[in-house]
């Protein structure tokens, strides 16, 4: 199933996809657009992706986690423009026991951030925007910041 979606994520639907009578624990994570980052007021985020590679990488991560923890994994990542409070990522991991469910869920979240070609542009409350670079020094305002005319 495709991991990237242009429409809002439904975490309950992801959880339902991985539940099974043999699985006693479902750990899940939802990453939401926050109203602040590095001291700046964030109005919204725009996510973009290298779609074909992102889908392939997400499928590889899910397969690795399912095998390593004998788990059922569901993963969705939103692309497009997101408002504060909307879900950007959701991972649900179901396994026989909670240790495996938590470990598999955390692994998928971490690997998506590390390996999947997705980028985000923060639009600030003052109208400026910047591409987010997680490898940049924490707390520094992104170097790529620039004024931008909002379309529509």
């Amino acid at each position, binding site marked *: 199933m495709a991991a990237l979606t242009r429409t809002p994520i439904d975490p309950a639907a992801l959880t339902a996809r991985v539940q099974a009578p043999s699985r006693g624990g479902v750990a899940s994570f939802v*990453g939401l657009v926050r109203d602040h980052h590095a001291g700046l007021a964030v109005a919204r985020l725009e*996510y*973009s*992706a*290298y779609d*074909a*590679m*992102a889908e*392939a*990488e997400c499928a590889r991560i899910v397969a690795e986690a399912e095998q390593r923890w004998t788990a059922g994994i569901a993963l969705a*990542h939103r692309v497009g423009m997101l408002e504060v409070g909307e879900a*950007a*990522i959701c991972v649900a991991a179901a396994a026989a026991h909670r240790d495996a469910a938590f470990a598999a869920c955390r692994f998928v*979240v971490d690997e*998506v*951030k*590390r*390996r*999947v*070609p*997705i*980028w*985000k*542009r923060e639009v600030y409350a003052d109208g400026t925007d910047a*591409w*987010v*670079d*997680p*490898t*940049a020094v924490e707390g520094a305002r992104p170097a*790529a910041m620039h004024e931008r005319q909002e379309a529509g």
Partner: protein
Amino acid sequence: MTHTAAPTVSVHVMLFARYAEIMGADALALELPAPATVAHVVAALRARPGGAGLPVRPLCAVNLVQVPPEHPVASGDEIAILPPMAGG
């Protein structure tokens, strides 16, 4: 010097996010002397207008798989130059 055509490789380059902005394009075609590697693709891009803003060793993928700079490229390959990933 003769006028015999030297062998070349033709690749499709994909640019994303900030790199697409500084290069003014999200896709372009490149022809390079053979044999060529990902590092040659990056060097050719850095020689173009705006290309100085690219890192010397950016993350790169060939046909949807991340590869190191010395990875060879062949005609028809899709070479993606990837800004630091920021999903999640």
